[in-house]
């Protein structure tokens, strides 16, 4: 009996060897690193037809989705008859036709014009699983068609990635288009520029408050670099910090109770915290070196800043509560304008090497430094999009400085402002 038991045990041990030898393969990279997307033009569901609306919606949506880097667009020349048919429901879409073209996702939509009012409906379909992923109806005026397209692009990104896109937000920047350096606001694709200040002086270094309703900026309007705050919707403006000397690089804390800025009231530029009424609350740095360009960590517990306390200008991190400072960057002769990512994992900054500034990112623990920009010209003033997917920055080439945007890995760079005027110091608003 015991013998039989042992044989059984022996067999039990031996058998799994043959079972475990099942065929196993490993696929360590997808064949395609983009999602094939069929992007069809809006079709009129009723009422008058307007090619301009369909074209503009298509152009804006296509540009936003292209910037995201997520998609490969199926060539519209290869579209079959389903592209010309209205399909707002999955039962109305000929999915095999789109599978034939290699599409995995499909965007269809309709518009309806009623005088000056416009109703746009957009749908995102999963071609492989033959189902509707998301859709929305936008009601507005004809002039709002760009905003509708941006909003739909945000929705598409939210559906596919779980996080909304930043395309409905806006970008503030400084431009000398009128002859003076004034504060301007534009869409994420560089369209619809709007001048916000008329100081007829020098305005610089803007930043949005975390809720996006206000912009902080420095202006020489009163012959001193004072810090101003401006309400975007009402246009109300107030001088906020006007200590003697520098009042620059104001950055509101994530909880919106304090503003970190550079003050040189005692002669040497240092980082301070002031209340929203402008009263000084705390001095963050106290060193013989120049300390400037503060940026908050998303949790509000740390501030990264630039200091030349150890020789060349480098990025340091200060703990707001303990006051402890740690050095972040170690390379390069000149590191400047740091900005903490909204996710908190990386810090973007510009560095001068070989007489030229380029954009770099580094993990907040000082590891994994990556260079993002290459080629001629100085790339400076980098700032993150509210979702951390993109970086906006200024770049000069042949003496013309313009605002550019790129993905957070340095790919897909594109110019947003014209080269005719000097545009710099961009700041990306939170989601509106």
């Amino acid at each position, binding site marked *: 009996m015991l013998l039989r038991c*042992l044989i059984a045990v022996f067999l039990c041990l031996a058998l799994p060897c043959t079972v475990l030898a099942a065929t196993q393969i490993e696929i360590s990279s997808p064949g395609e*690193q983009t999602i094939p997307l069929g992007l069809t033009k809006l079709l009129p569901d009723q009422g008058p037809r307007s090619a301009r609306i369909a074209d503009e919606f298509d152009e804006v949506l296509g540009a936003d989705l292209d910037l995201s880097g997520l998609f490969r667009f199926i060539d519209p020349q290869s579209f079959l008859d389903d592209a010309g048919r209205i399909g707002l429901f999955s039962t109305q879409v000929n999915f095999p036709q789109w599978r034939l073209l290699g599409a995995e996702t499909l965007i269809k939509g309709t518009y309806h014009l009623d005088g000056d009012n416009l109703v746009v409906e957009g749908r995102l379909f999963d071609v492989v699983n033959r189902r509707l992923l998301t859709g929305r109806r936008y009601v507005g005026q004809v002039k709002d068609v760009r905003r509708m397209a941006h909003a739909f692009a945000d929705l598409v990104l939210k559906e*596919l990635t779980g996080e909304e896109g930043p395309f409905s937000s806006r970008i503030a920047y400084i431009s000398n288009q009128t002859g003076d350096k004034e504060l301007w606001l534009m869409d994420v694709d560089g369209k619809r520029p709007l001048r916000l200040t008329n100081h007829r002086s020098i305005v610089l270094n803007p930043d949005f408050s975390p809720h996006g309703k206000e912009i902080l900026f420095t202006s020489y309007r009163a012959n001193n670099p004072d810090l101003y705050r401006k309400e975007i919707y009402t246009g109300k403006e107030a001088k906020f910090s006007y200590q003697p000397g520098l009042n620059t690089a104001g950055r509101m804390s994530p909880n919106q109770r304090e503003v970190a800025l550079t003050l040189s009231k005692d002669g040497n530029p240092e980082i301070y915290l002031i209340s929203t009424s402008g009263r000084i609350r705390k001095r963050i740095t106290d060193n013989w070196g120049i300390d400037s360009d503060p940026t908050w960590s998303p949790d509000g517990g740390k501030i990264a800043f630039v200091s030349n306390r150890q020789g060349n200008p480098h990025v340091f991190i200060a703990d707001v509560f303990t006051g402890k400072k740690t050095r972040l960057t170690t390379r390069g002769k000149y590191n400047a304008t740091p900005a903490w990512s909204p996710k908190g994992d990386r810090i973007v900054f510009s560095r001068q090497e070989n007489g030229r500034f380029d954009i770099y990112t580094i993990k907040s623990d000082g590891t994994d430094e990556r260079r993002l920009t290459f080629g001629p010209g100085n790339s400076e003033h980098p700032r993150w999009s509210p979702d951390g997917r993109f970086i906006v920055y200024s770049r000069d080439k042949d003496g013309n400085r313009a605002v550019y945007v790129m993905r957070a890995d340095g790919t897909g760079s594109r110019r947003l402002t014209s080269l005719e005027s000097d545009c710099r110091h961009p700041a990306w608003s939170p989601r509106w």
Partner: protein
Amino acid sequence: MSVIPLRQVNTFHKDPKFGRLLLVSLVIHGLVWAAFIGDWFGSSSRPKPPVYYVDLIHKPVLNPQAGRPDPRPSKKQQAAPVKKSVATPVAPKAVTKPEVKPLVKPVKTAKPKPVPKPDQRQEKKVQSAIDEIRQRQAREAERDALKDKLAKLRESVGAAATVPADVPVGMPDGTGDEVGVSALAFVQAFIQQNWALSPYLLDQSRIANIEAKAILAYSSAGKLVRYRIDTPSGNSQFDDSLKKAIIKSQQLPQPLPKDLELVVIFNLKEMAATRR
């Protein structure tokens, strides 16, 4: 008076220690076997070295060996081309050329003779028929010449092909008589080709560690019989892309040598390495 145990009566196991020794032997064998197959030192949990096999050549094509000189019929090749080379080149030239001239000339010479004009239509008809025949014959001659050339080429290729009949081709585990690459590599490449995933869909810091395991069963006809995501990655975007890749791979473009059950591990190690 004591009862003799049955074991002692058994003639086969005369020695009472024999059974015990057998047991001990079996136990030791079992333990050795267990030690051999067991993962005592955690070798399987050790991270694999980051070496990736990049298959640049064996992408799934329907018949990748098409055009390759077939090494097998090399024995027959010697006989077959000889026949063709003797029969084909000579026959057409000898037959066609003499046929053309006698057909054409009598008609041409007949042309100036006719005196009565009412037969002009008929004459034209005849002329066009002759032209047609001439053209056809010319085409046939051309075709025959091409056939000759082709036969000669085949002959020369057959002589040049020194590939032994049983040489492994395509893949290291190829046998030389398969149509295409090894079935496993073919399926792997096909699924990979159908897998579309943008790195921007994922948290960049997680790319290197994300992994999922799926079990796929293909029939010999190349049809996906069943599949199951055995160990999902936990990232909905990643898992969704896998499902789509599997659905897109539910019919292979060519049959398999036999039914195939696969454990497919999907990860982004190669992508992470290239994005570093």
